[in-house]
């Protein structure tokens, strides 16, 4: 059993704060009841492993609240961050659908609540609901595009450009705090480096450079984006 829940929650999917942003948002009536009745919710403490790379999925994880890091460990022991996921995101779908083991390890980056939709329930819903399967296929297609773009970006964008782009994406995905500027997720410099595929020292150097240019403001792990337009320009993307 992959789920290492510290407590059981029995919340109805209808009350899920992230429901509107999940692939299940269009489920109604009996189908939503099926999902709600069969899923199991669990609470994961910060740092707790949700599943391990190379283990096999027993279902689909859906994040109710919190943040999750998916990573692989390279032969040299270095962590490569594959993806960060937040409320409403699903995890392990590629392994589940492809009948393969997980390609990465998932760990809670903060106290999180996740629901596990059992394999049979998931496939029963997918094979009987064209709208749901279409949503999942759109998700897979869009992830594929993201991966292809990322391949070209890694090859051609400088570390500074990729760092700027990553910060903008983090702000978009996890939002900002009440000040509207501070990215609402705390990552170590090493984690940022592992997302971008560079050395930690380079991240430290470029962050400090952007700080001096008043494009960012740094306070411990908190990163505030002061000049979004300048960051967009550096990232080479258009608003």
């Amino acid at each position, binding site marked *: 059993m992959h789920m290492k829940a510290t407590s059981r929650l029995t919340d109805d999917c209808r009350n899920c704060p992230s429901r509107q942003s999940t692939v299940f948002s269009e489920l109604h009536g009996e189908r939503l009841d099926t999902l709600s009745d069969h899923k199991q919710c669990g609470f994961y403490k910060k740092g707790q492993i949700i599943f391990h790379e190379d283990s096999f999925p027993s279902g689909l994880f859906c994040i109710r609240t919190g943040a999750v890091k998916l990573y692989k460990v390279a032969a040299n022991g270095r962590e490569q961050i594959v993806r960060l996921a937040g409320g409403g995101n699903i995890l392990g779908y590629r392994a589940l659908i492809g009948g393969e083991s997980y*390609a990465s390890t998932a760990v809670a980056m903060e106290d999180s609540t996740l629901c596990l939709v059992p394999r049979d329930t998931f496939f029963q819903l997918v094979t009987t*609901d064209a709208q749901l399967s279409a949503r999942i*296929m*759109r998700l897979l*297609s869009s992830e594929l595009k993201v991966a*292809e773009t990322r391949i070209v970006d890694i*090859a051609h964008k400088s570390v500074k450009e990729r760092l700027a782009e990553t910060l903008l994406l983090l702000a978009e995905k996890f939002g900002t705090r009440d000040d509207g500027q501070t990215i609402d997720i705390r990552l170590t410099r090493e984690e940022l480096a592992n997302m971008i595929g560079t*050395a930690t020292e380079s991240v430290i150097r470029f962050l400090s450079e952007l700080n001096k240019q008043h494009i960012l403001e740094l306070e411990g792990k908190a990163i505030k984006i002061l000049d979004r337009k300048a960051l967009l320009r550096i990232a080479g993307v258009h608003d």
Partner: protein
Amino acid sequence: MIMDNYLSSTAFRERAHPHASNGFPEIEGARAASWKKNIVIMRENGAPAACYVLTTGKVKLVKKDRNGKNFLLALLHPGDTFGLPAVLNGEPYSSTAITIENTTGFRLDAVHFHRWYQQHPSNFQQVMRLLCAELGRAEERVNSMMRVSASSRLAEVLLIIESVYGTNSDGTLAVVLRPKEYADLTNVARGTIYRLLRQFADERLINFSSTTIRILNRSGLQSIAGI
């Protein structure tokens, strides 16, 4: 065994039943096709007329970077599908597929795909599996690109080419890419590729000429690649 583990962990892994598992050729309307070397099968930003599966031969997927240059996304081998997301979503192709040598496969026109796809909901699951395979291929490539050392990436690429495409009777790699293609695959400058190949040759890991590469010490390369 190490190689088995290696293959199962790369984007270029052999699938257990490449032709049977994707079921593509059995779909009504799928047509056998053959292409000569250097033929563009589908073009980036082109209208999604059809999707494809390879049965023999070799195809590369490339995508234009911001300077308009083609960047190698993947080397495809028998059993691999391509063009599926574009056909499924009715969007332009996101990459270009070019044959590296004479190649055969099946072509499924968009209209036949949609007819088959809508016939039965269980077909959704099959399409999802195919999409997952394409996504897995791309994500493995991302991971490979993220590796820091240029020599480890080049060593990995040489091993991949050997495992996917095999060797000639004299032990040389069956496919020799141009230095530019090695550079594109590894995200390393062309000059560095020459230097690393010379370095590998000095260490008796490979020998190479302008047209051939032979792996002399596989475990040495595996160790550099971190496998």
